[in-house]
């Protein structure tokens, strides 16, 4: 009697928690059943909140000015607002030398032409000591700085000349513009609903709790049911 009462109490509360998950599962499942009726595969969301579930816009840096600018949004490099190439590492410096951009990451320096192609790279194989920390220029040469010194890229010799280091500029408007451009046809409602349904976008802890709650509800439900049945049989 005591066990049944105790289980019923917990069963009620856990039932409430699990119902949130079941509601999500049922409503997204319902929407997926009708995805073709509502053309969900061809409707896209640009909500910053929903896109953040996919880690879009987490990393942003931009260099240059109004006329010539280079930006990195997550892995994608944009030159003057147009998507060009993908880099796996964050940019730590960028210098514009007409018509090319020279960009540095911690492990590599790349020359990017107007078409957005890497036309030259320099890295540890060329004798550069990593990690690269800054990229800049003096009157004649490109300069990089690593942990111990500033080095001229042309000669790979230390330099004592005054260097102008490239500085990232904070441009929230460019970031918003690039997110809007890059995600125009990125996340369809079908994909979003499917990912919500499959638990891909929700934290794994939430999925674990929901699964454990359902297991508990099933077992406690069986116990409550049979305990009651036995008592009823006894009364007969």
């Amino acid at each position, binding site marked *: 009697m005591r066990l049944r009462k105790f289980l019923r109490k917990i069963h009620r509360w856990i039932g409430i928690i699990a119902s949130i998950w079941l509601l999500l599962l049922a409503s997204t499942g319902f929407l997926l059943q009708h995805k073709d009726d509502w053309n969900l595969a061809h409707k896209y969301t640009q909500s910053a909140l929903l896109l953040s579930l996919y880690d879009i816009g987490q990393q942003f840096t931009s260099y240059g000015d109004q006329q010539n600018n280079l930006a990195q949004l997550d892995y994608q490099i944009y030159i003057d607002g147009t998507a060009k*190439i993908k880099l*796996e590492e964050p940019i730590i410096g960028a210098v514009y030398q007409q018509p090319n951009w020279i960009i540095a990451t911690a492990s*590599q320096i*790349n020359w990017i032409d107007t078409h957005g*192609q890497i036309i030259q790279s320099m890295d540890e*194989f060329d*004798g550069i000591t990593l990690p690269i920390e800054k990229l800049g220029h003096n009157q004649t040469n490109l300069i990089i700085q690593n942990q111990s010194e500033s080095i001229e890229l042309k000669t790979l010799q230390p330099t004592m000349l005054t260097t102008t280091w490239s500085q990232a500029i904070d441009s929230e408007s460019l970031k918003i513009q690039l997110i809007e451009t890059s995600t125009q046809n990125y996340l369809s409602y079908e994909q979003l609903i499917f990912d919500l349904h499959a638990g891909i976008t929700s934290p794994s802890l939430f999925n674990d709790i929901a699964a454990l709650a359902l297991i508990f509800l099933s077992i406690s439900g069986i116990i409550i049911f049979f305990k009651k049945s036995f008592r009823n049989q006894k009364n007969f």
Partner: protein
Amino acid sequence: MVFQQQLSANDKNSTKEFLNETFNNDIPKVNRFWVNKNNQKTIKQLFNPSQIKLSYRYWQKDDTSAWILDEIGKERDITTGIVISSDKIVKVQVLVYRESRGGQVQNKRFTQQYNNMSSNNNFIKEIDTISGATLSVNALNKQVKLALWLNHNKNKP
């Protein structure tokens, strides 16, 4: 849009392994073949690569040189290491394959076909293509031909 990627840490390890293997763990200093306007024109006419670099890196010890070149298969770069000795191919090895299809070109059985070939060989006739990997095979052919040309011309003024 072309998806080019710089070498990741793993890719660099495979490049290092390739160079260590080629030069018996004694990698020589890197050299560069600087592309002037005339060379640029010739490279474009002869090989029509997806991109012409400002310079091409190579490592040389005695008569053996190793070149690492990138060429786009369909959408992504394929990074290949090519070892040349006496103007003949000694070894071709795909170091980084980024395409989703056509990965069979990484197989040694395929790349060994290039061994001992020179710029006089007709690659289209002599290299067996792989169905479903035509663009990747074409990319490798271009890389090998370009490496042979660069190697032959590297000491010319």
